[in-house]
């Protein structure tokens, strides 16, 4: 990359240097010269529609648009010459000709790019005397979605929104209808939006045409304070800006505006579930049960009861199980792991979201996984059963950008056709739970072609053989197949030159929390003096409680009850315990059972670092005003010193955590160099791939808008909750089930009644049901996200 040719050019008399292919706008920005832009956006392909960026180039007969012109050797550019100034004033005048002067009520007012450019580059006076274009109410203010507000009168036709929908999100849901001054942005036939409602169109809109409808008319931008934070709702772990109003209440969440790849966009859950932790269900006061009496205490006073509880836990060493979920920061996980080993002296440190493959993935790929840059520069992307739009939308955006902007080839494999399948070159149907088989047969086919393979499979083989830079992305279902899949994919990656692997677990800080808490893997220092033979999954803990070998449980995280599979069984098991200590941000049945419930900060209030699935190290400062109490890591630090440990500052924990990560990375790299035994990938076929004769595979996952119970708790996204069973249309025809019919789903001895939606996008023999659309009681038979279940569909639905 270093040998990219550079060209010299002069902008406004300043001589500068830029790589070949860099656009003039970017070259000017680097030396601090501002060229106004509307249609141009650093993450979108250049368009040149609005003409506001016109600049004068010496020897060029006409003014040229700086947002589409790449730098050239010896170019002499003027951005403030009289001609340019006059042209810009003219453009601004034309843009304002039909723009209503409703800035006082427009929610964009104050952060409006049109406002800024008009003040800086406009004439300051209007000569326009005619009647402005005014769409009648039907189109001027169409209500396309409850979370987005549309005022087409304000549109300046830069098409950023439609391009972001096509090039980044890949939805193609909105478009510019009509032409000339009648042009407007809308959906097909002005129907309600059925896209994933990411709100990125509102994010990039330079005017108030599309704005965030959840805060419509509620406040003004200058009253809001942006607080940098990190979203913990999926493993993309995007940086966010959480905006609080004058009272410190969170009013909206936006993406940070930055040149980095990971910025500028957010998904629906990141953007609209901010209200989840503002509601009634938030745990704001702690409770402790002493001699059958429940006492409440303030969060600020939680240290004393916690110390007492931990002293009780520490009395009986080794009898405590520590369970955490992925919505905790690295520092918190690290301290939890350390306290478990040094104070509680227990080997049972168990993550709630457990994919058996994760430990071996972390062992092999820490620091070596594909990064966002790898995805964007790849020429071949292979999605192995990865419903990215549902599980980790931001990684899905990277894939879409690679395909739609950089022309990467995309192939998808799995039992579901996702949004990415429609932009891919081919989709290979592969049964759930059989991703390993696919990878193994791909490795075989790379050496010798099989004659009986499908056309799609052969296309994938050809593409892999011809790829220069390949990225393989696998979702949470393949991860659940266990270490054998990881070995298989490692073997594939070692056979294809320049290939990278990315596994996408569903939960927020899954990778970081597992590494830092040291579950199931070797940890330097404090981990070594405790036996390694602890429980590794939550089922083990449940069994041990029932057997009586575990007498205390410490649960740490957020939204914990949602992660406990088979809640009724857990409930009876918890009744046996001597101590049940829960650190949760939400009120639930679990917190009411706890002998000590401590309120903690939520998914965007927390403080600490996060390791994203793409291997990025994100830092949340926890500086949001109105956050509940102090951060958990500081509480744990104080707790440790109260219990006889050395006093340590938060900053030193941060550096220890970082060092620990480096240690893991170097270990993973060593492991690769040591063992060239990648061929030892298990040749045994996995058990998946053949559903029972009258049963169907039930694929479960969370619908896009949801993360655990977040959406049920938030008002904005909860209204889109869709509880229906997605079913293959051919299967449905065979079973004589029509679209929208109600059926009963029998899993084990439990039944659930759901409506059917038939689709061609799911493999024959499979169904999809959104886990989060079910109540906790209905959910109890699920074996966790990722594991396919066998279910029987009873049509008719008569209860």
């Amino acid at each position: 990359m270093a040998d990219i040719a550079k060209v010299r050019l002069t902008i406004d008399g300043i001589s500068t240097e830029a790589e070949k292919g860099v656009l003039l706008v970017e070259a000017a920005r680097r030396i601090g010269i501002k060229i106004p832009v509307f249609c141009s956006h650093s993450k979108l392909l250049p368009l040149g529609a609005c003409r506001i960026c016109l600049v004068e180039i010496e020897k060029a007969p006409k003014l040229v648009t700086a947002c589409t012109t790449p730098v050239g050797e010896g170019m002499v550019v003027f951005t403030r010459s009289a001609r340019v100034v006059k042209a810009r004033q003219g453009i601004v005048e034309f843009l304002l000709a039909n723009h209503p002067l409703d800035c006082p009520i427009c929610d964009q007012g104050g952060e409006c790019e049109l406002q800024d450019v008009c003040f800086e580059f406009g004439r300051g006076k209007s000569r326009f005397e005619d009647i402005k274009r005014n769409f009648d109410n039907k189109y001027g203010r169409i209500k396309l979605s409850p979370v987005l507000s549309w005022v087409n009168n304000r549109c300046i036709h830069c098409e950023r929104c439609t391009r972001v929908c096509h090039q980044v999100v890949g939805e193609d849901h909105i478009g510019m209808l009509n032409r000339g001054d009648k042009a407007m942005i809308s959906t097909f036939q002005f129907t309600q939006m059925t896209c994933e409602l990411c709100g990125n169109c509102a994010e990039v809109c330079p005017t108030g045409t599309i704005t965030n409808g959840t805060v419509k008319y509620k406040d003004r931008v200058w009253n809001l304070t942006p607080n940098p934070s990190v979203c913990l709702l999926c493993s993309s772990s995007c940086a966010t800006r959480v905006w609080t109003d004058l009272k410190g209440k969170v009013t909206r969440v936006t993406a940070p505006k930055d040149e980095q790849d990971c910025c500028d966009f957010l998904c629906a859950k990141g953007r609209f579930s901010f209200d989840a932790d503002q509601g009634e269900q938030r745990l704001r006061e702690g409770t402790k049960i002493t001699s059958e009496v429940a006492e409440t205490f303030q969060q600020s006073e939680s240290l004393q009861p916690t110390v007492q509880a931990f002293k009780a836990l520490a009395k009986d060493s080794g009898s405590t199980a520590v369970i955490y979920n992925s919505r905790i920061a690295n520092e918190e996980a690290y301290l939890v792991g350390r306290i478990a080993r040094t104070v509680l002296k227990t080997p049972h440190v168990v993550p709630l979201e457990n994919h058996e493959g994760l430990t071996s993935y972390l062992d092999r790929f820490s620091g070596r996984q594909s990064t966002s840059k790898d995805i964007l520069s790849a020429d071949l992307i292979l999605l192995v059963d990865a419903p990215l739009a549902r599980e980790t939308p931001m990684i899905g955006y990277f894939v879409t950008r690679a395909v739609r902007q950089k022309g990467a080839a995309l192939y998808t494999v799995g039992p579901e056709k996702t949004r990415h399948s429609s932009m891919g070159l081919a989709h290979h149907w592969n049964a759930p739970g059989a991703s390993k088989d696919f990878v193994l047969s791909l490795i075989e086919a790379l050496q010798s072609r099989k004659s009986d393979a499908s056309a799609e499979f052969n296309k994938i083989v050809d593409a892999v053989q011809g790829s220069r830079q390949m990225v393989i992305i696998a979702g949470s279902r393949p991860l659940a197949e266990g270490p054998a899949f990881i070995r298989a994919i490692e073997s594939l990656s070692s056979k294809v030159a320049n290939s990278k692997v990315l596994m996408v677990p569903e939960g927020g800080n899954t990778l970081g929390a597992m590494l830092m808490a040291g579950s199931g893997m070797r940890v330097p220092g404090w981990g070594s003096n405790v036996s390694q033979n602890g429980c590794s999954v939550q089922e083990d803990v449940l069994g041990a409680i029932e057997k009586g070998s575990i007498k205390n449980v410490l649960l740490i995280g957020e939204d914990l009850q949602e992660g406990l599979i088979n809640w009724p069984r857990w409930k009876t098991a918890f009744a046996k315990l001597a101590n049940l200590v829960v650190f949760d941000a939400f009120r639930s049945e679990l917190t009411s059972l706890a002998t000590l419930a401590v309120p903690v900060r939520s998914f965007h209030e927390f403080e600490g670092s996060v390791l994203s699935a793409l291997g990025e190290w994100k830092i949340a400062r926890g500086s949001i005003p109105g956050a509940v109490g102090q951060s958990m890591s500081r509480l744990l630090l104080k707790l440790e010193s109260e219990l006889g440990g050395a006093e340590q500052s938060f900053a030193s924990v941060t550096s220890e955590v970082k060092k620990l990560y480096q240690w893991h990375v170097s270990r993973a790299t060593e492991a690769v160099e040591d063992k060239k035994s990648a061929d030892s990938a298990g040749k045994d076929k996995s058990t998946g791939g053949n559903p029972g004769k009258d049963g169907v595979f039930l694929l479960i996952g969370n619908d896009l808008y949801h993360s655990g119970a977040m959406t049920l708790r938030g008002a904005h996204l909860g209204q889109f909750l869709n509880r229906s069973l997605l079913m293959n249309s051919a299967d449905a025809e065979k079973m004589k089930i029509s679209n929208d019919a109600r059926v009963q789903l029998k899993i084990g001895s439990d039944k659930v009644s759901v409506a059917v939606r038939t689709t061609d996008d799911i493999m024959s023999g499979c169904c999809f049901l959104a886990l989060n659309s079910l109540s906790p009681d209905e959910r109890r038979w699920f074996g966790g996200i990722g594991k396919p279940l066998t279910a029987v569909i009873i049509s008719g639905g008569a209860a």
Partner: protein
Amino acid sequence: MKSKTVFSEKLRADILQLKAMYPIAQSALIPALHRVQEEKGHLEPNSMLEVAQLLGIPPIEVMKTGTFYTMFHHKPVGKYRVQVCVNLTCSMLGGRHLLSHLEEKLGIKDGETTSDGLFTLIGVQCLGACHEAPVVQINNDYHSLVSEKKLDTLLSSLRSGAKR
């Protein structure tokens, strides 16, 4: 989700054939829309949806293209589509007067259809025949150097032709 088909077998086959003619399916969009309009008279939402399904492109792409060009109609149109050019050259030579004359004569406004379903009046931009302005295009036929008188005879002949 599949919606019910609104196209005849022939129309579906034609569109699929058009799709096969181009390397990119989207290139077949305008010919396909023309073909649909030929058969259905105008483009209704369901037709556009089905075109999108047949070509395998997002429905919004079809609607974008369909609404961009004035040659596609989204409401039922009359038997004769009278398109009067009101662009610069034609306007200077009386195009706009012709339009208002027709509005008066047919008793309808620009974009409307007569109650007998014969004529739809549309004021359009340049028809590309400035050298013989003013130009009126009725369905696919150009009528150049039109005067009010010439237009009246044209309309009455069309009317009597339709009656026959």
